[in-house]
């Protein structure tokens, strides 16, 4: 599903050159649940950004479902992100001024879809994460766990092939974290969604199918 070949990511300024990733080669099959671990600053989020087509590698190739994307235009990359990739972030990134259901609808805004269908699909996604009773609440009226569930609903509303989660439990207590992990496992098992999750938690990483470890921007296993 996702393939990275000889990937390097270097951030350059006038004076400094920072190697964020070097010589990364990996392949993630469809339906896998992969965790990425490593100390802070080792390049985990950079790797996730490259997989999510939010950034481009300085060297090497990224392939998504067999498509080599290095020559893709912004429009085409955006369409791929919209249709094939879902994102979940540590700090949820919900829009405070929009209701729960309006937040979940966001990915569908960038598809040709009627408002009624958009709303139905958002409500279905919210039901899937157990938040049917909170659709008209605002993010500030929800607990952290509930907010992350809204973020997951937003990530899955477009039925993506891949879900990229950047420390999805990082801001939650252990019970809420377990709840979110159970949801991700359920998604992986039932819908066959490929999940790549960045985490610092060995316990959670242990519950994924494969763990990829990074150190100073390099794969260590």
């Amino acid at each position, binding site marked *: 599903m996702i393939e990275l070949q000889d990937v390097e990511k270097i951030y350059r300024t006038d004076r400094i050159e920072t190697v964020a990733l070097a010589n990364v080669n990996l392949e993630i099959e469809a339906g896998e649940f992969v965790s990425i671990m490593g100390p802070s600053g080792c390049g985990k989020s950079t790797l996730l950004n490259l997989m*999510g087509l939010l*950034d481009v590698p300085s060297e090497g190739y990224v392939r998504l479902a067999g498509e080599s994307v290095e020559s893709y235009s912004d429009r085409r990359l955006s369409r791929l992100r919209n249709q094939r990739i879902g994102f979940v972030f540590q700090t949820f990134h919900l829009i405070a001024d929009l209701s729960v259901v309006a937040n979940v609808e966001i990915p569908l805004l960038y*598809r040709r879809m009627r408002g009624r269908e958009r709303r139905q699909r958002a409500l279905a996604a919210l039901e899937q994460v157990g938040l049917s009773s909170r659709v008209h609440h605002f993010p500030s009226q929800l607990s952290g766990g509930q907010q992350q569930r809204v973020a997951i609903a937003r990530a899955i509303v477009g039925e993506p092939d891949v879900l990229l989660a950047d420390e999805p439990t990082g801001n939650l207590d252990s019970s809420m974290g377990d709840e979110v992990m159970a949801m991700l496992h359920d998604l992986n098992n039932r819908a066959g969604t490929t999940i790549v999750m960045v985490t610092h938690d060995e316990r959670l990483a242990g519950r994924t199918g494969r763990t990829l470890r990074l150190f100073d921007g390099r794969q260590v296993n």
Partner: protein
Amino acid sequence: MIRHMLQIVWNRKASNALIILEILVSFLVVFAVVAMAIFNWRNYHRPLGYAWEDVWQINFRIGDREFDAAERHAAANRTLERLLRELETMAPVVRAAAGHYPPYTRSSSSRNWDTSDGRDIFTEIIEATPEFFEVLDIRIVAGRGFEAADAAHPWQPVIVNRTLAADLFGEGEDPIGKTVDLGNMKSTETELRVVGMIDDYRKGGELAVPSNMMFEAVWLEPTRRPLSLLAIRLAPGTPAAFEEELSKRLNALAPEWSFSVRSLAAKRDAYLRLRLAPLLAAAVVAAFLILMVALGLVGVLWQNVTQRTLEVGLRRAKGATRPNIHWQILGEMLMIASLGLVLGTLVVVQVPLMGWLSFLDLSTFGLAFAVSVVVIYCLAAICSLYPSWLAARIQPAEALHYE
């Protein structure tokens, strides 16, 4: 997407209050300036009713050797008659007349009649010798001009403009031969009978509001109070140097009087400068205000985009293209502008409802409103171009980690 933007704008109305207020103030300023500009533009393009080119006005001060008023009036009218006669013998003078209130004059004489059917009709009155119409090329569109035989009538012949005719006798009615309903003044006034109608005589000049006008014929009889000025039409191309010759001749004819000669063209220039200067000043102040508002809007929107960096990153991650982000910021700004315009509309609609600025007719009001709305939308769009361009260029990977 429009509904989504509306939701965002509505839910952020408190934080957008400053922008809404700026839009409201700008709209009111633009509306005032545009309404005045349209009002004056329309007035400028209305027919004047006369031709000012090649017309000179001669003001005079009557010497008062005579102590008795009746004798003074008789002597003055005799002199005026002689002056008119002599002026027409001068080569470049085509026609000469005497009267009150020439074009581009502020002073006026007016009357208010409470007619028998309870209407209140206001009109300005111009007294002039019959030749006044030829001097100023005022066209009689119905009936006739004043004639020498009119002096013998027991009634006062008058010539009215179209608006007064419509007010007096009704729209489309032929006023010729009809007697003016003097109402409350019936017992004291001489009967006024309409002998002719003109399109207009906009004494106040190109920028003046059209008004009811009535001309009363004057014959230089010894008993009447003398008229206040002479007007002459000159042959086209008469040089300004003729003024000297004219002054010498006038002084020779009436050495005890003092004269001042001025062309209507010069009066018109001075009048337009006087009337346009405050309008231009208001327009400059308004333009400056709008520039300030525009800079303010760009600043506020720029800050707004910076504050929304994370949101922009999120939208890009969720599939928004650069144009999507661009249009999102632009669209939201236009919606915010719409909120300001709704408030502005509520304010300006009070103008016709409350009867303020009654000189603004409904079409001027409507046009000024439409133009102001377009100006404000353009202003909002222009001001959001750069911030929306900045937002569209935000890199999603960086934006998602923006703090």
